[in-house]
């Protein structure tokens, strides 16, 4: 059966291997250049004590390379479309399932081996791409501290493996249920993109309760230093006693400070025309404080693990659906 799976999909495997090899060459060459560029920049900035500005002065990579990195977001979806979708659907559509299912092999074994290899290949391929991107990005991560940002979190670490497993399982299940290749592919793309967007935007920020730090309002609005690649969830100003800064407690003038609408206490009103910078100290004196809510940098792998777990569970559920549908339904 393994031989049949290989014979059916070897062309796809060759194409995928060639694409991966090409991608690896680009990543390895440019990654090495970028790493040495970063290290020499570190040495020269240490000499001039300007390393704190390095994030703004040093330009790593090129727009084309970052586009390529962003394109790896599509890898799981492509695997779902080219490997997952047709796996069962094409056999049902062309009738070859009837050929396979009347050889001396049980349907469950046929499905298990097909699904097993497809998932294994997806995990290996998704993992290889992710490993290359993660390694390539290490100077960028060290420089920019934006590991949590969408477009970086989603293409590095272990989550791409889980996305690939999910996408392939989704393709297989859609094919088993719909029994036709093209609708299965369309469903795979639609559901995958929708679910990824929903989870990344609405679920991911809540995997763990965010940490809130409040600090004194001042004109230059300096932030307390937070180490590493933390993930800022929100930032703003709170009124006295934690109430909203725009609360109607004062029927004063509303001003927007760093994106937060603040209703000025009457005492601070006059400063608006006389000496605007002093509004900060006036607000601080009236109990207003600045805050930042964030996920600390050391939660990065916990977040990767939680997200990878969610998609792996969804993948397992979809495989179960495929098994039930293939075994229960008539050929």
């Amino acid at each position, binding site marked *: *059966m393994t*031989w*049949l799976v290989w*014979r*059916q999909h070897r062309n796809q495997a060759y194409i995928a291997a060639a694409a991966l090899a090409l991608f690896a060459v680009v990543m390895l060459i440019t990654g090495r250049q970028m790493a040495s560029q970063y290290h020499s920049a570190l040495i020269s900035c240490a000499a001039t004590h300007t390393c704190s500005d390095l994030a703004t002065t040093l330009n790593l990579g090129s727009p084309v390379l970052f586009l390529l990195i962003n394109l790896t977001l599509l890898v799981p979806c492509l695997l779902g479309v080219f490997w997952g979708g047709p796996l069962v659907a094409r056999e049902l559509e*062309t*009738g*070859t*399932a*009837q*050929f*396979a*299912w*009347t*050889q*001396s*092999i*049980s*349907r*469950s074994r046929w499905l298990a081996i097909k699904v097993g290899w497809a998932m294994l290949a997806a995990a290996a391929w998704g993992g290889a791409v992710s490993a290359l991107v993660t390694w390539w990005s290490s100077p960028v991560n060290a420089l920019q501290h934006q590991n949590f940002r969408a477009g970086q979190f989603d293409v590095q670490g272990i989550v791409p493996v889980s996305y690939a497993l999910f996408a392939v399982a989704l393709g297989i299940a859609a094919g088993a249920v719909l029994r036709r290749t093209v609708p299965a592919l369309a469903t795979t793309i639609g559901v995958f993109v929708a679910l990824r967007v929903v989870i990344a935007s609405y679920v991911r920020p809540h995997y763990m309760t965010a940490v809130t730090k409040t600090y004194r309002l001042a004109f230059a609005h300096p932030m307390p230093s937070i180490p590493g690649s933390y993930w800022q969830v929100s930032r703003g100003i709170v009124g006295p006693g934690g109430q909203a800064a725009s609360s109607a407690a004062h029927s004063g003038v509303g001003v927007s400070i760093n994106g937060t609408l603040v209703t000025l206490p009457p005492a601070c009103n006059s400063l608006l025309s006389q000496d605007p910078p002093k509004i900060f100290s006036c607000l601080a004196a009236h109990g207003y404080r600045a805050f930042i809510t964030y996920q600390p940098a050391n939660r990065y792998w916990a977040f990767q693990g939680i997200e990878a777990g969610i998609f792996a569970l969804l993948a397992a559920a979809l495989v179960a659906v495929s098994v039930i549908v293939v*075994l229960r339904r*008539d*050929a």
Partner: protein
Amino acid sequence: MMASSDPAVIQTRALSKRYRTVAALTDCTITVPEGRISALIGPNGAGKTTLLRLLAGLARPTGGDIAVLGTAPRPDPAFLAGIGFLAQEIPLYRRMSAADHIRIGAHLNARWDGTSVRQRLEGLGIPLGQAVGTLSGGQRAQLALALTLAKRPRLLLLDEPVAALDPLARRQFLAHLAEAAAGGGLTVLLSSHLLSDLERICDHLVLLAGSRVQLCGDVDALLAEHQILVGPRKDTTAIERDHTLVHAVRTPRQTTLLIRRNGPVIDPAFETADVSLEELVLGYMGQHADGPSPAHLSAIGGDQ
């Protein structure tokens, strides 16, 4: 039901299959003894494909019982090793060669005779290395039959295997099949909507029409049980009472009756004649196509 001592390879009782609101097969009771080449005849949509798929375990019945080779069809290696199934559209992997298919068979079957397929294809001049999608319909059908036979099945289920073939390919295909069956130990059930396709090789008949079995039995026995009566236009109530009327053609000058005999016919007004297989099949199909009268309905009920 049949005067045969051979053990039954196929036995169904009140078998039914419904697809949502459509009855594909209704109350189907048939027996096919070992060693027969049985023709499954019926118009398009009669339920032939459904019956074959139920027998192969590709579909599950919604009612009744099936025993194939002594067990209920199920998708496990022990059952599947005993049957060979060939679907109507001859599904093979179009981009793979015949040699690839022979290897697939070797991987998926514990009992596999790849040499026989090679020999058969070489004998027919069918290229082994060429993608199956580029072969002609006749070549594909021959390949599929050879692959099905390479499992050394005890029961071969073939769904309209010759429908898409030209007369020469049809002849070769049936010759191949007859040769395989002559080896012994093989029972064949093959369907067609045309009796003439299968008449030469089959010795058993299952006739389906309108999702129901109209006739099932050994060809010789069926022919012996039926008779054609030709006589003047007159009242046939007496004959209908003693025998089972299958089909009647009445013109102003004469009456032609196809009956299932219950004993000798003693009406000097009628001439008796032996019935041919084609007349028998057309009689039962025509009966169904005309829309059965109440008398005919009871006749069908009596049959089955």
